[in-house]
């Protein structure tokens, strides 16, 4: 069992003692092959980028043209002698707002039964721990530079909030383990 308590030097020695042979790299030929593959991919991506830019520009132009066409049609009065035909409003037109159809389709696309998704908490915990360490770091800097007490209080408050969230995540983990 490595003893990390005795001195930091021990950890350094142990880390240096870790064998390096487990990480033997691939050969030079394989390196060259991968390098060429990356070059080809990079060239392909550059071509793809140009194509994507052209597509975006074309779609933008089309949208502008459509918009201009729609605006041009708004203010024109009907020509004299031409009967104006109006479609009779249906029963749905009066009762439903304009976006009702979209909302109906979206609701219909939802699954009938709610799905429960299990998500690992590792990323959340790491993120919270990193953020807490960052706040600790800011607190130390603020204390050293004699910042305003209000700023220190804000940082402490933020830290307490983050620790609270971390505790909740840990508690949820314990509950999840208990329910398995």
């Amino acid at each position: 069992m490595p003893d990390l308590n005795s001195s930091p030097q021990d950890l350094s020695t142990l880390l240096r003692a870790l064998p390096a042979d487990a990480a033997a790299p691939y050969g030079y030929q394989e390196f060259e092959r991968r390098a060429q593959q990356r070059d080809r991919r990079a060239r392909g991506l550059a071509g793809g980028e140009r194509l994507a830019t052209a597509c975006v520009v074309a779609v933008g132009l089309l949208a502008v043209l459509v918009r201009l066409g729609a605006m041009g049609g708004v203010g024109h009065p009907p020509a004299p002698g031409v009967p104006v035909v109006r479609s009779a409003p249906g029963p749905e037109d009066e009762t439903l707002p304009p976006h009702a159809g979209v909302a109906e389709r979206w609701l219909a696309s939802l699954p009938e039964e709610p799905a429960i998704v299990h998500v690992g908490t590792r990323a959340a915990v790491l993120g919270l721990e990193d953020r807490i360490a960052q706040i600790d770091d800011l607190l130390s800097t603020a204390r050293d530079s004699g910042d305003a007490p209000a700023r220190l209080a804000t940082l402490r408050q933020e830290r307490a909030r983050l620790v609270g969230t971390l505790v909740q995540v840990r508690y949820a983990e314990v509950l999840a383990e208990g329910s398995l």
Partner: protein
Amino acid sequence: MTVCPELLARARGGEAAARQALYAQLAPATLNLIRRIVGQRALAEDLFQDTMMLFYERLAQYRSEAPLGAWLRQIAVSRCLMYLRSPWKRARLCLEPVDGGVAAEVAALVTPGYSGELIDLERGLASLAPTARAIVWMYEVEGYSHQEIATAFGRSVSFSKSQLARAHARLRLLLEPEVQRPSCLI
């Protein structure tokens, strides 16, 4: 690690055999360094490929102010830190398996050269957060100072110190023998 100046000159001139010889000499330590910093073998190979490609691209700019191996290590560390600081890293982390990933990485590493305590240490390192692992390795093995680490990460010195202290505490916790404590009622 010293590299023969004649070999270096030939490699700079683009001679394939010399470049291959340089690769054979420098690649193992470079991949090992990258794998220690980022943890995962597949990811380490991606960054290793980037590093070596960049190394050959910049070889003409090398001025022999530092040993070639140290210069390459600087490129490798810089590539690793660029990866660790990128927002994509966070997204990728969410998709990683939680415990199976660590176990599989450690199992893949263990060779006959490993003693029991080194396996424990390997497992402990693999379970650290990527930033913490990078800081541990850079400080303890590569000899970076807290100031240099802080500059490399674009953070303050106390960030480096607090990350290292937390990593030490976590390693200590992971490496302590499990004690069967009696349960108690509160």
